[in-house]
Every structure is written in C-alpha cells, then in structure tokens.
C-alpha cells in the first residue's frame, strides 16, 4: 500500500507515492535524487542526515516522509544561490571546516538553525549546539571557527 505525500523541497512542489514506512531521507535521496543529505548511522545519533522542515533542523533518518506532508523541506542542495554559496557553506570552505565532507551537509544545516535562533552564538553555544552532529575527521575545531564566521557573515 502506498500513500501520496506532498511537500515543498528547496522551493519546488513535490508529490510522491511512498510506502508509509518511507523515511524522509529515503524520499530525498532515492525518489528525488538529492544525495547531499547523508546517512551516517541510521540510528539517530550522528546528524549527517540533518535537513530543515518548516525552518527547524531535524534528523531526516528519524522522520517519516508522511510526517512532513504539507511541509517545507530545505536540504543542503537548496542553500546556494546559483554558483554563490550560502555564507555558512562559504565559511566552511574558507575555514577548512571539513576534511572528508561526510558530516558537512548535516553540520551546515544544523549551524544555520543555530544562527537563525541566536545570531551571535558564543564558542560554547556553538559547541553545545553540535551535540547531535558527529565528525570523524576534523576534531571540530575548524567547524566551530567556520560556524562563528558563518554566523557573522549571515548577520551582515
């Protein structure tokens, strides 16, 4: 049995026939080909799958596509304006906030939710916010620097 889900993904209206047990991340990656959203753990711990639903960061591996029916979804692919990176993406590049890049889409989506709530987060606030985002490579230091810089450029 399938159900129809309708949502806006990166500004485009999308309609898909899915099984009720389909996760949002499966819809994004498998139906829509938006493979920028990664699956690291599939057990709700690592944050590689973080996207925004109705403006808030969520783990798309721990959400049914059906729960997002009628919602607005933004993924890493929806951030750049043509060839111009989003200020948070640009900050990650500038400050070497990534090595292998696997965690990066989730880090960037999570960081933007932080800055939307708190335009000038302190280093401690950034580190605490990253509780749900795990990086195997960087040791976090440059990620924190990138988010600090990204927050400043998002602010102006």
């Amino acid at each position, binding site marked *: 049995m399938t159900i129809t889900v309708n949502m806006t993904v990166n500004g485009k209206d999308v309609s898909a026939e899915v099984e*009720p047990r389909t996760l949002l991340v499966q819809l994004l990656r498998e139906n829509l080909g938006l493979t920028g959203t990664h699956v690291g753990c599939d057990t709700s711990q690592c944050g590689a799958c973080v996207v925004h639903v109705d403006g808030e*960061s*969520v783990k798309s591996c721990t959400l049914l596509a059906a729960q997002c*029916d009628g919602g607005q979804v933004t993924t890493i692919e929806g951030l750049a304006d043509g060839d111009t990176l989003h200020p948070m993406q640009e900050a990650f590049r500038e400050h070497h906030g990534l090595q292998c890049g696997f965690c990066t889409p989730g880090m960037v989506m999570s960081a933007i*939710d932080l800055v939307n709530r708190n335009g000038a987060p302190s280093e401690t606030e950034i580190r605490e916010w990253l509780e*749900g985002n795990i990086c195997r490579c960087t040791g976090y230091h440059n990620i924190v620097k990138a988010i600090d810089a990204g927050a400043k450029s998002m602010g102006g």
Partner: protein
Amino acid sequence: MYEFEYHRPSSVAEAAELVSKADDGALMAGGQTLIPTLKQRLASPSDVVDLGAIAELKGIRVEGDAVVVGAGTPHAAVAGSAEVQGAIPALAALAEAIGDPQVRNKGTLGGSIANNDPAADYPAAVLGLGATVTTNQREIAADDFFTGMFETALTDGEIVTAVRFPKPQRAGYAKFPNPASRYAIVGVLVAETSGGVRVAVTGAGSCVFRASEMEQALAGSFSAEALDGISVPADDLNNDLHASAAYRAHLVSVMAKRAVAAAQ
C-alpha cells in the same frame, strides 16, 4: 521497518478512535523513540496514528499557579518558553539538556513520559514537581503514573493530552549525562512545593523514584549540607557498562546536592 498503515488525525477524539479500531495500533508523537524502535523491528504495529498534526496537543499556558504543557509540545518549545522560564526555570533547563537540538525539535513531553525510559529526564520533572498528567480519559497524579521500567498507568490507546506542573517555591535539576546520548546516568530533581519537599531520581533505577530520606532532610533545612551523609541504597540500582550500582548511588547524592544548590 515492517509495513504499517499510517494515519494523521487532526483531533484527539479521531486519534483515539483510529487507535482503538486498529488491530495493533501505535500512537506516534515526534517519532524520536518510536521510529528507532520500528527500524530495529522491536515493534511491528499494524497502524501508526501520528499525533503530530493535532493542534490541541501543542502549546504552553499558565493557569493560576500552574504551567500546563500540551503533550505534543516539543522539548525545544518548553526550553525556550518565557512562561516556563519565568514560572519553573528548572523545567526549562531540564528540557534544554535533553539529547541534542534536533531531538529537541521533534521529541515531545507526552512521548517522553508515555515511553517512561528509565533514563529519561521528564519523568523526574513530572514526579519531582508533583505534576498531574491529563489524558483523554482522566487525570493521573504523578505518584501513580510511573509504574515500572517503560511502564505507566496508561491503558492501551489512552492518549496523554497535557501535563499540569504546579509552580514550586523553588526547584532545581542536576544530571550526570551519558556522554554519548545525553540520557541521564543519574538525574535528580528537587522541589520545595506546597505539599512539601519532593526529590525525584531518574536514570539510577529501573523507573523514576522518590528519595524519601532526602525529602525529610530537606524539609528540615533546604540546603545541600542537609544531605550530608544521606544516600540511597545501591541494591536495586542499575548496574551496566556506563556505571555500577554503587557509583550511581554516589551520583544520586552528588546530583541531589547540586540540584538543591541550583534551585530557584
């Protein structure tokens, strides 16, 4: 995940009807526990009834001397609420320390207490503040709600609609978090309420419980020193790779003192 049928009702009455008609229906709030459980095939409901679109389950309001939090209110909304921060700062701080931001955006008060994980934070607030749980059928006092490990007084298909937290004179919460999940290895909520001092301990045992000897000591003097030399017996406490029962017993005393010191 096994297959199931999915429903998204817009009222509590409709949800109750859907879950009662299903062969083996499961209620879902944010899915932050249910979806991982389904993925691991630890549960195989015939039907999932999603409470996420029910507006009447969401929101926070102050009613006289109490803060009423809708069962479907996410942790982030409780943590960020000016009403909760003003009336019961310990409750806002407890919600802010649950898991991570993404879990706090989806996970709910109702889901947390209905699940009654032995290491969850909210059960300590509900029991420690002497709250009342409202369901679609009745009101249940906190002292009667949590009945055992992952067990509550809720009957099959009964839906938690809200929790009424009476404003305490002061309350504090301190937890020693598991460094990976942030669940409580031990969490203690202490509150000076109109009905006396209450001390609720989560994470340490198979279910949240009250520490009566500590309550008596704090009723004499609400100070960290009043707890000197008082500990809970280790016999029935959890013993696992995160902490031994003896260490948990020690942590209960330390967290209780910190909670008293933080109380406001």
